């Protein structure tokens, strides 16, 4: 039994398994659907955010009691993007019923107090439990504060006092994250979806060619062919990995096309996946597919039935969601141990690449190396399982 012959046989098994799985139209469509859903969700969410932002820019301000402060109303009207409208009869009821995001109430005695240079009351009716109204309320509050500050400055000047004296501190926000990083924060789910595509893509072949093959009764005739078990296991593993890689590529391409249809520029976000990112994504994600396919094959081989194998696959798909969800909640660092962890390593690499950073070659090599070693161990285990009569004939 020469190595050359074994390699040829592995290639034969890979070709058969891929041909077989590509003919399973239903499974194929479910892969395409599963790997497209991620980018589509991101696009949908981004669009909502952009809409929200646009709404904030064009803010509608209902005012009750306009006649009590014409100067203020006039000033508001002059601010860009502000539309002042007559407030509702019952402001609190209108806000509670979400007919209005907020309402400004100008009391009758506003002018009187204003003219006496005493603090004149303005009321903002708002529902703080409504997240979507919050930016609008914030904007209106800032506008009113700005108006107050301007009037205050004028009054000080009229009394011969420098307005600077009444402003002991100045606040300035300095943003350190690059636009790319901010984009990656919002689009933090993309690495998760890319990694999940690997898991989703491989699971069909991984179950069908192991637990499925046994349940169909085609495993026994297959094993009568003169080849070591490692040939069959290796071929099935690589076939699953190839489909996993293709799914990963599909998701990546969708994620690359997606930003073109999103109003990212408008939101002040520069985000694109260009050729220079592609190399990084491939180097990070493809070795992971070798690992995920090996893990799925091993688990499916251990399962007592095809059904059982399928339900295990459902659990395994959750694996890449762990770093994804963690990454969304806490900013994920890049400690060296992370690169040396399967699934997490590629996730961190992808986050960095998409954030416009270039991780070191060592980080890529560590991550790929760990995926390969883990995959090799798992394939070895599966091959040993295939030697076991209990596993082969567990029908």
């Amino acid at each position: 039994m020469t190595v050359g012959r074994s390699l040829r046989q592995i290639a034969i098994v890979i070709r058969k398994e891929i041909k077989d799985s590509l003919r399973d139209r239903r499974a194929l469509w479910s892969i395409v659907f599963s790997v497209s859903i991620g980018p589509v969700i991101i696009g949908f969410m981004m669009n909502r955010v952009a809409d929200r932002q646009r709404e904030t820019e064009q803010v509608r301000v209902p005012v009750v009691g306009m006649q009590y402060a014409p100067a203020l109303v006039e000033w508001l009207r002059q601010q860009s993007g502000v539309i002042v409208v007559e407030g509702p009869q019952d402001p609190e009821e209108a806000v509670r019923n979400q007919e209005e995001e907020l309402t400004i109430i100008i009391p009758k005695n506003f002018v009187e107090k204003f003219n006496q240079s005493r603090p004149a009351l303005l009321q903002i009716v708002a529902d703080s439990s409504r997240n979507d109204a919050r930016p609008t309320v914030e904007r209106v509050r800032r506008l009113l504060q700005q108006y107050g500050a301007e009037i205050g400055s004028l009054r000080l000047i009229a009394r011969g006092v420098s307005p600077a004296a009444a402003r002991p501190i100045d606040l300035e926000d300095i943003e350190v994250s690059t636009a790319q990083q901010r984009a990656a924060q919002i689009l933090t789910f993309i690495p998760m979806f890319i990694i999940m595509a690997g898991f989703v893509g491989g699971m069909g072949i991984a179950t069908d060619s192991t637990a499925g093959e046994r349940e169909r009764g085609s495993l026994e005739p297959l094993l009568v062919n003169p080849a070591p078990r490692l040939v069959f296991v290796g071929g099935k593993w690589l076939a699953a990995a190839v489909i996993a890689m293709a799914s990963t590529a599909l998701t990546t391409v969708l994620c690359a096309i997606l930003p073109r249809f999103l109003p990212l520029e408008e939101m002040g976000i520069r985000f694109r996946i260009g050729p220079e990112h592609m190399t990084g994504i491939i180097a990070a994600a493809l070795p992971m597919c070798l690992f995920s396919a090996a893990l799925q094959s091993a688990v499916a081989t251990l399962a007592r039935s095809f059904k059982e194998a399928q339900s295990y696959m459902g659990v395994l798909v959750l694996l890449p969601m762990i770093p994804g969800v963690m990454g969304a909640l806490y900013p994920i660092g890049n400690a060296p141990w992370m690169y040396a962890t399967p699934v997490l390593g590629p996730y961190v690499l992808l986050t960095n690449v998409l954030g416009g950073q270039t991780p070191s070659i060592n980080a890529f090599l560590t991550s790929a190396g760990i995926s390969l070693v883990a995959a090799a161990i798992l394939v070895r285990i599966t091959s040993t399982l295939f030697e076991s009569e209990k596993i082969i004939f567990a029908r």
Partner: protein
Amino acid sequence: MIRVEQLRKKFGTVTAVSGVSFTAENGAITGLLGPNGAGKTTTLRMLYAVMRPDSGSIRVDDVDAIADPHEAQGRLGVLPDGFGLYPRLTAREHLEYFGELHGISGGQLRQRTKELLDLLDMNAIADRRTAGFSHGERTKVALARALVHSPQNVLLDEPTNGLDVMSTRAVRTIVRRLKEEGRCVLFSSHVMQEVSALCDAIVVIAHGRVVARGTPDDLRKHTGHDNLEDAFVALASVEHGAHE
């Protein structure tokens, strides 16, 4: 030629095969006859190296099948019990897949595939996916893929089980043809008539051991029953170790 000596196999505390020995000659059809659960399938599985015997020896054309299972497998064509097909592959693709795994390719593989499709009268179904095949059609596919590499030794585990008359005939025709070509055919069955009609030599197995062997005539003499079926019943119901 297949030579089996003192084959033993236990599953936990159950002894499935307990010292089976026999020889299946070239150019002859050897029948492995026994009731269900006698150890026929386990014996065959050890022959085609998907199970390892606890002890004993197996030689396939002078190849030690235990020490060198892949070399032995290359010389065997096997139709296992309860075989399965790939529902999304066509009949022809089944032959090609196994042929390639045996190292045949190109024109040689195409030629051999064509021969078998003609021989088993499968041309009408050759390029259809096997998903909706009848039991007879499925058996033909499995038989053809077992023979695609022209093996010298052919093992058939209850090949006619559940087949209709026409398919059974087709299988018998193939088996006789293999014998004429000088091949060694070993085939298991629990059906007396079939074995007596087809086989040159019969090995009767019961309770995991060989209780009798010989030609159909030998068996009749051996048991004192003229009727082969009575002979079989007499042999199969022998108490453990009381005979032989």
